[in-house]
């Protein structure tokens, strides 16, 4: 096969490719060719540039310098990339990183199939075949989040193979997968390749034992290519027996000296007899699922105790119980003879914990992370510096103390995690899969550190792993599967029990005995015709939009809390705000400083206190008192009736009543002003009529005021049609606001990069479910307005309905635009709140008409969609209008949505930079 492979033209070639992240270069002037039709492997430790190289080849990352040719075309050319996405399948690094965790196995594959335009029949056939081949068929309805690591990778593979790719790019597909699943995975790939001999497979791996499987290899280090060729050639050239040794042999001389392939084990480290950790009958149930079932073991002081088993077997849960993060459902644990108490801060100081995922603060530098943890563990301030320096020196972190962790290679990050766990010199270390995803050289060094710790400092180490060669280095191991401990013994004894040469064989034997796992039959794919959809890619495809919309909709439906919040929340808000917002001024508290104290002055006051607008408070006795009471806000209006009020009126001498209004809230003061003047005029007229002097007080003309559209001037009738637009802006925008930035944070955005989805299709598809949900919300709110609030809908409902669809489309597009623009979810949240709350409430004419606004608010108000929908809502609800009258605002909405969506498409990036 290898000689065949080399005779063909290359599937990919790289010429002087360089890639930099900021100042750090990931790939440094790389040139080589990959032969077609074979399985080519990129080998080397972590962060030497393998992932970057594959992402460039897959078109997921933008080419910076140099030229990459894949299948005869330049990958810097957008047109060629659009063609290649049909031929290439890409499985990014990280377990299930491109999967949608809350969707089921079937739905995940179905999503990809629809993106490639396959019809129902074809999708069903392919899903059936792929899941049967991978052994996932029985789990079709299980959510991806509930799959083990190995199953997740198989599902990823199904998704990748759905469109019969000609090039399959797998980035560390078996990292973090247990040995049994790893074997099955490679058998599966072999089976596929037998059926599809033309397919080129490019794989990155840091497992050197896997390298033997590849037809052709590229050994990489530090962004450079060390060697290329078949495995045999490499072994011959270096004169070594294993790939691991061969790799070390091709390393530059300077590096080679520090590496050494000697395997260290814990066998020579003495162990004391005292018990450090004891678990007795520990059980942990989540609902009806038992994650850990009746687990018991004892770990002695100074022992390195290994915990081995496939992903999802309960290792992490057991460890969390021992750190006090989880309270066990049953059973108990002891730490240094003390029953474990999560509230006991003193024991926490004796334990160091390193969790499975890298969980240090990405925004703090290496030094800041170390110092923070030292301080939190109360390492004396004077000793922190020395301690940090010592650990940095020990774990070779001195050169990167001021770097941010996300920029570091995984191996360095793991060493940082270990350094952090050791900062307070704990007596017990609990390490949850500390080396998963770390290359063998780094792992070897890591283990040397662990053994040193146990040997020189007597630290007890409880470590979980799925690498069997790591388990072999422990004093004792516990084999775990499906929540139960199968056996606890020394590695040698376990091997002996099963007559196995290696622990890996012994473990697989155990597992087979435990659950009768047979490798699934490999009966993949006869060659089928390529996907049907060969149309030009630049036009939006309804099928792909529908596919993205379907997936988004499924995710929304699986999150009933979000659905309920969106629908019920709008209804509640409508209630609170519809009833609550009232621009009318009622119950103004006023007090009177009556210096006259006559029947007439009291009559004047009664005139005011008898109205529903004013409530009289106890009388005021002095100007100073009036001042104080108004200052405290108790009085909103103060009246002063002068001495001789009644007498002066009788003598027809001019009299002046003083009135002071609280101007702190101008709107209220203005309305109140009108009422006070009105009441005063009313009193004058009344007195005049009483005295038969009507003419004296009556004016020469009358103004009859007619309040139109809302004759009783009820706030409710004016407010409800204004509250609906506000709710339909804020909630839909917030629904859409996290949809893109979340995919960016969680990694599934890669699917958008490497499938034939255009930016416009992506944006439109994401919007659809939110538009539908918000339209339902609109109907609900309108129904409420008419029935519960009794707001008459006097105009044309059809106009209102179509306007509302356009409006929620604009609102969700606004959220999507923010989402595409922002990098973090927090910024997206705050940005959305800022860009919706103020413009919708203040600039859109709900309280003050847009025409009377000033400054930037005026401009925002003029183009903001809420303004236009508010005009339509008020027109249809209160003014009895239809489409003919509302053409202008309707047209504005028709324009707003496409503008926002096109902006979103422009901001979205089709490749990572």
């Amino acid at each position: 096969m290898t000689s065949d492979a080399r005779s063909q033209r290359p599937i990919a070639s790289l010429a002087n490719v360089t890639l930099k992240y900021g100042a750090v270069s990931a790939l440094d002037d790389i040139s080589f060719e990959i032969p077609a039709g074979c399985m080519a492997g990129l080998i080397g430790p972590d962060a030497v540039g393998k992932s970057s190289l594959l992402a460039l080849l897959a078109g997921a990352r933008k080419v910076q310098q140099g030229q990459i040719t894949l299948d005869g075309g330049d990958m810097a050319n957008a047109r060629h990339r659009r063609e290649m996405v049909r031929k290439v399948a890409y499985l990014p690094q990280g377990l299930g990183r491109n999967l949608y965790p809350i969707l089921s196995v079937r739905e995940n594959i179905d999503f990809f199939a629809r993106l490639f335009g396959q019809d129902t029949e074809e999708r069903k056939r392919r899903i059936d075949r792929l899941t049967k081949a991978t052994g996932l068929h029985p789990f079709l309805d299980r959510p991806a989040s509930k799959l083990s690591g190995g199953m997740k990778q198989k599902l990823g593979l199904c998704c990748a193979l759905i469109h019969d790719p000609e090039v399959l790019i797998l980035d560390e597909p078996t990292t973090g997968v247990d040995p049994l699943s790893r074997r099955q995975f490679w058998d599966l790939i072999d089976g596929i390749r037998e059926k599809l001999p033309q397919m080129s497979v490019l794989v990155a791996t840091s497992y050197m034992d896997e390298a033997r499987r590849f037809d052709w290899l590229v050994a990489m280090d530090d962004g450079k290519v060390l060697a290329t060729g078949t495995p045999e050639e490499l072994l011959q050239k270096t004169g070594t027996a294993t790939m691991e040794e061969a790799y070390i042999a091709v390393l530059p001389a300077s590096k080679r000296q520090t590496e050494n392939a000697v395997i260290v084990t814990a066998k020579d480290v003495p162990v004391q007899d005292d018990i450090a950790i004891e678990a007795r009958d520990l059980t942990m149930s989540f609902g009806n699922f038992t994650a850990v079932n009746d687990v018991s073991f004892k770990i002695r002081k100074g022992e390195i105790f290994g915990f081995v088993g496939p992903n999802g077997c309960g290792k992490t849960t057991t460890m969390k119980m021992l750190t006090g993060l989880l309270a066990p459902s049953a059973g108990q644990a002891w730490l240094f003879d003390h029953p474990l108490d999560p509230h006991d801060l003193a024991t926490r100081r004796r334990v160091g914990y390193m969790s499975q995922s890298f969980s240090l603060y990405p925004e703090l530098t290496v030094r800041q992370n170390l110092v923070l943890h030292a301080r939190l563990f109360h390492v004396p301030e004077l000793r922190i510096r020395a301690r940090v320096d010592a650990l940095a020196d020990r774990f070779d972190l001195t050169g990167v103390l001021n770097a941010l962790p996300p920029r570091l290679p995984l191996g360095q990050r793991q060493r940082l995690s270990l350094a952090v766990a050791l900062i307070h010199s704990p007596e017990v270390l609990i390490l949850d899969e500390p080396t998963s995803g770390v290359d063998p050289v780094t792992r070897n060094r890591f283990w040397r550190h662990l053994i040193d710790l146990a040997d020189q400092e007597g630290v007890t180490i409880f470590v979980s792993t799925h690498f069997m060669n790591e388990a072999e280095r422990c004093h004792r191991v516990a084999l775990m599967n499906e929540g139960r401990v199968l056996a606890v013994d020394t590695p040698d004894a376990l091997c002996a029990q099963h007559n196995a040469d290696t622990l890996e064989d012994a473990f697989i034997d155990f597992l087979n005995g435990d659950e009768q796992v047979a490798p699934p039959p490999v009966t993949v794919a006869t060659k089928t015709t390529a996907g049907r959809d060969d149309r030009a890619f630049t036009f939006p495809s309804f099928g792909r939009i529908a596919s993205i919309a379907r997936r988004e909709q499924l995710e929304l439906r699986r999150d009933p809390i979000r659905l309920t919040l969106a629908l019920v929340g709008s209804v509640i808000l409508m209630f609170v705000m519809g009833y609550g917002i009232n621009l009318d001024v009622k119950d103004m508290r006023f007090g009177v400083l009556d210096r006259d104290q006559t029947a007439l002055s009291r009559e004047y006051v009664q005139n005011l206190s008898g109205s529903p607008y004013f409530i009289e408070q106890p009388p005021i006795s002095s100007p100073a008192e009036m001042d104080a009471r108004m200052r405290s806000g108790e009085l909103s209006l103060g009246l002063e009736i002068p001495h001789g009020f009644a007498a002066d009126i009788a003598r027809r001498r001019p009299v002046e009543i003083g009135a002071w209004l609280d101007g702190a809230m101008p709107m209220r003061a203005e309305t109140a002003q009108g009422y006070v003047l009105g009441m005063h005029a009313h009193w004058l007229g009344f007195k005049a009529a009483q005295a038969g002097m009507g003419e004296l007080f009556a004016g020469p003309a009358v103004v009859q005021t007619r309040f139109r559209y809302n004759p009783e001037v009820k706030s409710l009738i004016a407010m409800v049609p204004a509250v609906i637009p506000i709710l339909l802006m804020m909630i839909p925008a917030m629904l859409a606001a996290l949809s893109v930035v979340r995919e960016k944070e969680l990694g599934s955005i890669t699917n958008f990069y490497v499938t034939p989805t255009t930016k416009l299709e992506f944006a439109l598809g994401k919007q659809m479910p939110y538009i539908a949900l918000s339209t339902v919300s609109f109907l609900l709110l309108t129904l409420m307005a008419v029935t519960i609030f009794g707001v008459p809908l006097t105009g044309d409902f059809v106009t209102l309905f179509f306007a509302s669809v356009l409006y929620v489309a604009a609102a969700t597009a606004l959220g999507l635009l923010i989402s595409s623009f922002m990098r973090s979810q927090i910024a997206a949240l705050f940005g959305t709140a800022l860009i919706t709350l103020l413009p919708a409430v203040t600039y859109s004419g709900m309280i003050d008409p847009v025409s009377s606004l000033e400054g930037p608010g005026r401009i925002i108000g003029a183009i903001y969609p809420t303004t236009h929908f508010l005009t339509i809502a008020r027109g249809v609800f209160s003014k009895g209008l239809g489409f003919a009258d509302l053409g202008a605002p309707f047209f504005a909405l028709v324009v707003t949505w496409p503008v926002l969506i096109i902006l979103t498409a422009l901001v979205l990036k089709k490749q990572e930079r």
Partner: protein
Amino acid sequence: MGLRNIAHLCVKEMRSLLRDPVMMILIVYAFSLEIYSAAVALPETLNKAPIAIVDEDRSPLSVRIADAFYPPFFLRPKLINQAQMDARMDAGLDTFALDIPPGFQRDVLAGKQPAIQLNVDATRMTQAFTGSGYVQAIVLGEVQGFVQRYRDVSVPPVNLALRARFNPELSNRWFASVIELISVVTMLSIILTGAALIREREHGTIEHLLVMPVTVTEIMTSKVLSMGIVVFVATSFALTVMIQQVLNVPIAGSLGLFMAGTTLHLFATTSMGVLLATLARSMPQFGLLLMLVLLPLEMLSGGTTPRESMPEVVQFIMQAAPTTHFVAMAQAILFRGAGLENVWPQFLALAVIGSVLFALALARFRSTIGDF
């Protein structure tokens, strides 16, 4: 509680925030331009109200009336006919339409007290309420002045001298700038604390904290404290630079007292942020919860419409919202120059609400640890 732990965690929170440049830009924007544009957007009292006049009289008096409406209170009146009036009001072009009947001047001079019809678009609440009073006063004033040239009409013997205190010009800019500041303070403090907690949960770092000799109380206090400090600093800037200097709003009372009240308010809102974050299971859920909480806080706290006019149920419920007390306190101190002897009830209310929210958040935080 270990004060040292809290201090160390606070430093960590601040450093994390500083690494998010987009967020920093948004914060600066919110406390400067956003407040500025909200303050200048709202018209000074009645501003540029659109008015149309149907003049069926075409007399010197009716022309005099039409001339009396001019900016800034009103836009120059459009002279229209009866048929246009309805269409223009339907389209929302005019808030007011004045219909002067034929023979108006003649009837006035004859002492027949003729009626002018004023049509008001009542869906435009504020302009409708304040504006109709103005229109009446202007029309009657013009008629009175006109008549006085022909007849001797005595001044009414009882005059009402009405003045507004604390903001004599009834400038909306004063009020709007402070209300927007309150709105931004509330929004940011809830989002910062809540999202910071959810992010720690999504990145798994919270687990790391929980295995260290650090208590849940310390973790929560550090979040409340650090984000409170960030917003406090931003508020001081906005108040002294934006509101006092740029917008020229005179502050009547003590800034120190106001900032003390702000501290209590921040204690309540940051605790609320933590509480919401423990209720939400993911960032998208938190986003929706946020909207459900922010809208009532913004609309019903007395900053947008007067509290006294709300139904009593709503008034009662909103007593539990920190913004209600903060708005009342801000008005009293900043505009009316009130001292602690006046605003202690609001201080007390904020302290109680803050403590209750803090305790609730802490209890929720503890009970949800297992779910992280």
